[in-house]
């Protein structure tokens, strides 16, 4: 059974389409990237999954059933627009919000201590939220999201406003959660984070799915059919290539349709030049994103 099953959902606001015929599924034990430009419909989709807003049509199943008050306890949600009670102490905020997820006070406090200790923030336990930096309060929000050990975790732009140290810390926790068998949905427009963390992804634009699949599959689908070469010596025409693009520090050789990178490497070795770097060029997710979104914008 999938953790999430979204089937042909639609949502419009005052005649403007926010999400159209969107379908996808998320399995346990995976990090699923929901990506797209600003206003693509990511947050609307998540809010429909969380039953905060209702879809105009279509079905959403969380662990095989419609979201109910009791099944909300299986979910951890870190929204993009997030905050905490500014006048409350860190520990009180965590205990109150986790109690709304069905946790007992004693176990919430013990788990809060454990998590705060893990991220070296135990000293902030009795501080008021307003005394914390933005990044620190964001970490507390993340703790609130995962403290009740949810089966499905939905993170909307979790890294925005975090410094590199905290970003790494959060990434490690997200990977740990996946390894514990949880389903994680990561909504972001930071493509490097998606490349590092996600097993599968869905790209949406103007409320519609424009690209989906495993990261490996998508990258191979968008392979550029060229190789990158950093060398010393004189390089003439290489058989099997159609173009040589000189870039600062390297050249990019565009291959014809019949030649493989392996054959080009053999031919380069035979010319006697010194090869410092040779790699098959693939588009970064960011480039794929720009390519797909750009095409859709045209």
């Amino acid at each position, binding site marked *: 059974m999938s953790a999430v099953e979204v089937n042909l959902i639609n949502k419009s606001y005052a005649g403007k389409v926010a999400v159209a015929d969107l379908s996808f599924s998320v399995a346990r034990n995976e990090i699923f990237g929901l990506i797209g430009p600003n206003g693509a419909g990511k947050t609307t989709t998540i809010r429909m999954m969380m039953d905060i807003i209702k879809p105009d049509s279509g079905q959403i199943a969380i662990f095989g059933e419609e979201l109910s008050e009791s099944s909300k306890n299986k979910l951890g949600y870190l929204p993009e627009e997030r*905050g905490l009670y500014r006048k409350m102490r860190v520990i009180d905020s965590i205990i109150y919000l986790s109690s709304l997820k069905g946790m007992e006070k004693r176990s919430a406090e013990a788990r809060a201590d454990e998590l705060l200790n893990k991220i070296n923030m135990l000293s902030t336990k009795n501080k008021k939220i307003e005394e914390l930096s933005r990044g620190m309060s964001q970490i507390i929000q993340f703790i609130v999201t995962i403290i009740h050990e949810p089966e499905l975790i939905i993170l909307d732009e979790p890294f925005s406003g975090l410094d590199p140290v905290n970003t790494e810390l959060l990434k490690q926790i997200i990977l740990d959660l996946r390894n514990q068998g949880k389903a994680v949905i990561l909504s972001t427009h930071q493509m490097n984070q998606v490349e590092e963390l996600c097993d599968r992804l869905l790209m949406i634009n103007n409320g519609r799915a424009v690209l989906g699949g495993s990261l490996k599959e998508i990258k191979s689908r968008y392979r550029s059919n060229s190789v990158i070469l950093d060398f010393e010596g004189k390089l003439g025409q290489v058989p099997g290539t159609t173009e040589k693009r000189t870039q600062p520090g390297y050249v990019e050789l565009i291959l014809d349709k019949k030649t493989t990178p392996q054959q080009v490497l053999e031919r380069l070795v035979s010319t006697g030049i010194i090869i410092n770097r040779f790699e098959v060029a693939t588009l970064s997710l960011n480039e794929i994103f720009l390519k797909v979104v750009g095409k859709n914008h045209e």
Partner: protein
Amino acid sequence: MNKTLLIFKHEFISTIRRKGFIILTFALPVLALLAIGIFHFASDVIKPPAEAVKIGYVDETQSFNQLVSQGNMVFVSFNSSEDATRALIEKDITEYIIIPYDFISTGLIQRYILQREVAPPPATQNAIKNFITSNLLAGKVSPAIVTRVEAPLNLLTTTLTPTGDVASKQGGLLNLIIPGIFSFLLAFSLSFSSAYVLQGLGEEKENRLMEILLSSVSARQLIFGKVSGIGAAGLAQVVVWVISIPILLKLASSSIGGILSMIQIPVNFWVFGIVYFILGYLLFAVLSAIIAAISSTVREAQGIASLFMLFSIAPFWFYSLLMFFPNSPIWIIFSIFPFSAPVLVMLRLGMTGVPTWQLIASMAVLILSIAGGLLLAAKLLRTYILMYGKRPTLKEIIRNIKRG
């Protein structure tokens, strides 16, 4: 624990821990204590002096020479205004009057004093009046008639039931005191409790907490828990005030205590008081939730809410009209109009008997308004609580309500 109960507990504890709430809860009894102290002090100051007060008079008509002693005031005759002025300056007398030769036709009496005042003290005015009256009537009518002319009547009204028996609830100015104070506290408490709802929801919206909360509980659970939690805190506040009344009465002087002990408030007044507090609070709390849902900031929400709060305090503006004509059709309409009903009905209950049909109609309209408001608030909360920075127009709100 049930999630609504968890929110109730959280809101109750957060509210009673607020500095503003604590100050307000204890400030009112302290202010009352202060008022009692001031009353004691002032009554000591204005207490009539033990020795007789001498008031000079120059009688140009030559007919006012008897009954010069009126209570503790003694009228001392002077031949001329110069003599009287001298005596006044030398503090032999406290003031003097001149009764001119044409007094009978004009009724005019000239009074001279050393210290400026807004109006003659009632005791002095009364003494002068009685001095004049008793002299004018002396020898012409019996002393009993003179006394009657000085104090013509003491109107004692008795309310009868339709069957001709003496009604258990009698009117009177004294009986307005407790209902008046209670209605004032009711309006005060309604205003503060609904302000806490407004502030609580507004802050959760401003602090971007709403989406986190709605991922754990439904909009209805959130509103129910919040409204009941803050309402319970408001009720606790009123209970503190009510408990402090007997203590304050004990501390009050025998004169105030005596007056207050004469006041009889029927039990059903307190029952209606509690019912109208709960209904009134729920109505304004639900209204606050609706306003918080559609407003972009707490300040904006407070501005809109204060317009509705005017209805609850408006009866005090027309207090005198209400006192003399408590059963006017306009008050009947506003006793059924939900926003003015709680305070107005309580005021009218203290002044007159409110017919049962009006009480039923007023409570029914309040209950229906609360139920409708709760549904509307939950719907609007879901729709607008996640919209930041922009307040929807009335047209947009109506369209969204219609779309469900």
